[in-house]
């Protein structure tokens, strides 16, 4: 119950923050908003005074900021995100259109990172201080230090241009997934591995872990029955926090490889000053975080009944 209330408060605050920030963005567009929007809508070859005038007339820009702010927030609370300034389509439709692509990419990336990171981390955590553990530390630090856009760049150069194994960009077929998902997953896995390693090392150092062995269980039995379950809780919680990292990665990578997702839309919306789209996508990402973490809270509470006070 507590979880639900605190996550609800978080969701409302996220909405208010996004609303206020995007309103400020709308109001403070350098230069004239109508011009900006016209440029986004008609392209640089065709933006001229007539186009800007058409936009100004259509959107009714101007007026005092306070009533505008109230009506802006009012629309937001009624979940009316308005229409994209650029395409004229309802923002909600555009997002619905793009969310799927991003969701699949994010899921593939998280899935891949979970296949790579935690098993290595658990192996290292079982033998803290070993050569393998130290090697993993170095490797994960190195991978963590590679920004996702750089990872994508390297993968494109190596896997798709040099080797010709994977398409450099595109969307629609499973083979298009591998490169962007891998670019995201390697960074996530580097961190996952560290979290799993630390969790495993700390679980293995707990009295109950040794006690399980003293009961006569084999190492593998102890790991399977007592290790993994205990490691999964911090890992799961961290995955929730990692969501933000993932979203940032999705934003950058989507722009890199031309992925028709919400992150790509966001960058373009920011660039074209399409504020309703910025608001809609930002809200979707923020609320997505809250939702994912609420689900993880509930899942973690199921696995670890101590948390549910």
């Amino acid at each position, binding site marked *: 119950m507590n979880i639900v209330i605190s996550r609800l408060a978080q969701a409302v605050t996220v909405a208010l923050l996004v609303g206020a920030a995007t309103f400020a963005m709308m109001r403070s567009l350098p230069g004239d908003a109508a011009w900006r929007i016209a440029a986004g809508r008609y392209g640089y070859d065709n933006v001229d005074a007539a186009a800007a005038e058409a936009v100004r007339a259509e959107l009714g820009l101007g007026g005092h900021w306070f009533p505008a702010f109230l009506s802006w927030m009012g629309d937001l609370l009624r979940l009316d995100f308005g229409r994209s300034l650029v395409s004229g389509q309802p923002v909600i439709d555009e997002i619905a259109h793009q969310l799927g692509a991003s969701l699949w990419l994010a899921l593939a990336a998280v899935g891949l990172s979970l296949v790579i990171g935690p098993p290595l981390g658990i192996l290292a955590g079982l033998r803290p201080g070993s050569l393998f553990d130290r090697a993993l530390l170095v490797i994960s630090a190195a991978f963590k230090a590679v920004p996702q856009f750089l990872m994508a760049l390297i993968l494109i150069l190596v896997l798709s241009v040099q080797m010709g194994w994977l398409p450099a960009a595109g969307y629609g077929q499973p083979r298009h997934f591998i490169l962007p998902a891998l670019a995201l997953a390697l960074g996530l896995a580097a961190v996952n591995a560290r979290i799993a390693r630390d969790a495993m090392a700390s679980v293995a150092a707990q009295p109950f872990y040794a006690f399980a062995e*003293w*009961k006569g269980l084999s190492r593998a039995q102890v790991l399977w029955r007592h290790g993994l379950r205990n490691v999964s809780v911090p890992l799961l919680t961290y995955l929730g926090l990692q969501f933000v990292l993932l979203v940032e990665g999705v934003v950058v990578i989507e722009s890199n490889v031309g992925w028709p997702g919400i992150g790509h839309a966001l960058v373009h919306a920011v660039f074209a000053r399409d504020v309703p789209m910025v608001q809609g996508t930002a809200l979707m990402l923020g609320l997505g975080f809250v939702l994912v973490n609420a689900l993880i809270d509930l899942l973690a509470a199921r696995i670890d009944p101590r948390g549910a006070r």
Partner: protein
Amino acid sequence: MTLLSADDITIRDGATRLLAPVSLEVSPGEPLVILGETGSGKSLLAQAMMGTLPEGLRVGGTVTIGAQHLRAEDRAAFKGLWGRQIAVLPQEPWLSLDPLMRAGPQVAEAHRLVRDLPAQAAREQAMSDLAALGLEHAFRHYPHELSGGMAQRVAIAAARAGGAPIVIADEPTKGLDAARRDDVAALLLVALAESGGLVVITHDLALARQIGGRLIVLRAGKVVETGATAQVLADPQAAYTRALIAADPETWPRRTAQQPAGAPVVEARDLTLSRGGQRLVRGVSLSLHAGQILGVTGPSGCGKSSLGDALLGLLPPQAGEVRRASDLAPTALQKLWQDPVAAFPRTRSLGQTLGDVAHLHKAPKGRIDALLARLRLAPELLRRRPAAVSGGELQRLALLRAMLARPRFLFADEPTSRLDPITQAEIIGFLAELADEDGMAIALVSHDPVLIDRTADQICRLDRSVSETGTPQQVDLRHATA
């Protein structure tokens, strides 16, 4: 017949010898108690017999378990014996149960995986094990839903499910109050009766007395004395054993009661306290005069610390009132904590911390040195960090720090519960001295009713339902141990 024997066990850490050659035997029906203080090597000895010594330590000697002869250094060879030949009882049962698994399966998995019972049979066996310990309802509980005593029983059932004939218990009463200690002793004796072999490693004289059998007294890695437990405790030969027994509160003389003189330093009327929404103390009245020691006792969680904090003014009472003498400076109320390490700033040297206090209270030069001498502390200690000083020394330094503020009331919250008996006797001795010589009023909290009985001028016994105050003669302390 011998169930377990260890021959010439030695343990070294590089060039340092941690354990001189020790040999011992465990026979069916005759428990073996290894008694010693922290750092005596008793736990290392136990670990050597179980094959759980850290890799960094060199171990020599042989261990014979049943028909198997093992070289102590061959740690891996012991693994196969766990659960099957040796059952190990953990120190802290709460921490020894997997927090994310229900109690029943933690017992059943040993039946299934160690004794190869089918899943259903293992579950039924676990159920009957728990039922035998009076825990039939706990099968589906998670460890955090169990009390400490229940967790201990579950742990014992889980440890013994593999059917090992030898039970090794390492400090099974660490941190337990007297009532729980007696429970554990009884459980161990039941285990002895069923399994045959029992080794108990402890620093607790009372537990040793209850277990009986044979006794090995260890000090600084050497055997000081061996013999039948009852005989050694009744007629100790070695000086160290005598000191150990003398430090047992049971053997202390009762304090000569101080008559109240003048106005009370601290006074409580109909005090009701609650913390975190839970009512802890109800309707306590007491008054404490200069030079008096108030003993506060009761089971854990009964509000002993809260009472002290209320007297100090750190916890506002829910009802009733606390009155302090009107001429009392705010800093004349001081406190000692159970864990002295946590009571000092971690990253500063003790000398800096004490210097700051002396400076704040404008203590004359040499005051710290004088107090160091009085508390028999070496001045070199001041150069160290809190974590680099032994618990007994640090508790005395905490006392020193409190004294720099010239307190007239001191609240000592379980100041000796983590200390060895000899150190405990020393600290309590200092507290009594402060009351007598400096006229300090002291509230001393302990879970050990015997200690309170011997030390206090008046006693406040708290329980979840009742509380009574009075002189040691008036308050029935046995009630607290029942």
